[in-house]
């Protein structure tokens, strides 16, 4: 009973603290710039506890921008593999959703969800920071509530 309450609190804190690891799998950097804007004064994602971290081993959320290219497929899979559970993937921008204008390039393998399960899609070319914020919070909700993501 008491343990359950503690567990509930620990899970709830997952919602309030969201560490994001950003992977660029071959994007044109448009979305990356918008992700930077997300942490500026105007959109200030830090107030929801969202933080960019440098290592996938710290991360709760994998933020992918860009179509998956031949070169970037293995690093993406490795980074996803290194993330501890519970983890969610947010795919940002049209290119990561479908390949966008690069879809039929010789070196583009396809959208992100062909390789790893994606929990939240954020469209747009490039995605609006506000949309990214909304998507991240939605992912936080999923992380907090989805039972099968948790080992405990």
């Amino acid at each position, binding site marked *: 009973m008491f343990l359950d309450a503690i*567990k509930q*609190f*620990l*899970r709830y*804190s*997952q919602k*309030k*603290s969201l*560490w994001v690891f950003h992977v660029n799998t071959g994007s044109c950097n448009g979305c990356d710039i918008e992700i930077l804007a997300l942490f500026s*004064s105007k959109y*200030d994602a*830090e*107030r*929801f*506890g969202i933080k*960019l*971290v*440098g*290592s996938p*081993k*710290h991360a*709760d959320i994998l933020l992918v921008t860009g179509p998956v290219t031949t070169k970037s497929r293995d690093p993406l899979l490795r980074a996803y*593999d*290194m*993330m*501890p*559970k*519970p983890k969610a993937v947010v795919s940002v921008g049209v290119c990561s959703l479908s390949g966008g204008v690069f879809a039929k390039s010789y070196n583009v393998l396809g959208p992100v969800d062909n390789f790893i399960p994606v929990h939240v899609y954020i469209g747009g070319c490039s995605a609006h920071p506000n949309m990214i914020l909304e998507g991240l919070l939605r992912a936080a909700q999923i992380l907090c509530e989805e039972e099968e993501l*948790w*080992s*405990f």
Partner: protein
Amino acid sequence: MEFLKDLFLYPGFLFGFVLGGLLEGFKRKLKARMQLRKGPPVTQPFYDLSKLLLKNITKPYTISSFTYLLIPFVPTVGLLVGVLLMPYPFYQEKASFSFDLILIFYLTELPLLSQIIFGYFSKSPYGMVGAARAAQMFFYYNGVFIMVITTLCLLEGPPYSFCLKSIAEAWDSLDVLIKILTIPFFVFSVLAKLKLNPFSIPDAEAEILEGPLTEASGVALALFKLNYLLELAIFGSLFAFFYLPVLKTSPQMGLSLILLGAFFLFFMFALVENFTARLRLSQFSALYLKFLIPSATLILVITWVLKTW
């Protein structure tokens, strides 16, 4: 029973943890407000920490899981003892003995050492670079920190005791002057010790990812963060003990003075973090070797001369 209360509640774990967390949250909030942002809630560090407790662990192949969890765990115990050694109000009779400052100094070194060892143990290239940088910084700022401690200890006049309690109780008009002179050195060495902004060289975010902690995850990372919070609490209260008349007043007043001092220190840290950019290692060493170490030595010698004759 009494000991368990000391250990887990008031001066021990809970107090240090809550104080450290609030200090970190306060600093983040203040930093955000100075940039015209709203900033995270003050309780954000607690959310971060408690989230990490339930996360899984992904450790590299190269390191056994026992070592992986043991390395961050050792300094946690050390820092807990470090908190217990401080003469907090309502507790001071039990805590202080001679040379406790030296022991506190030893114990506050442990987190950094554990990080350096962890960085190399994990065999991550970023961890190794970060560890090497941290080790080189260690060389410089510890000199300044020891000089500050010694200067303050000289103020007690012979016989010396290196006891935190007697330093906190030594207040003369001359003492105040010297104490004020040592504040910048204390701030600079603690900034480097806590790896805050101008000296955030070992875990430079974009450059070498997370530095020595790149391979930490789950409970191990939580322990590292907990160590950091306890360190914040220790240095915040050390500042108050050194520079505020904490033990001269009633215990209630003393406790609020400690909080005041600690939060003031972190207000300064937030300001410094905002108006400085990260230095290179060579700039850092130049700053310490050409400016801070000579002037700290000068103050030490002046105090020595004044107190001996």
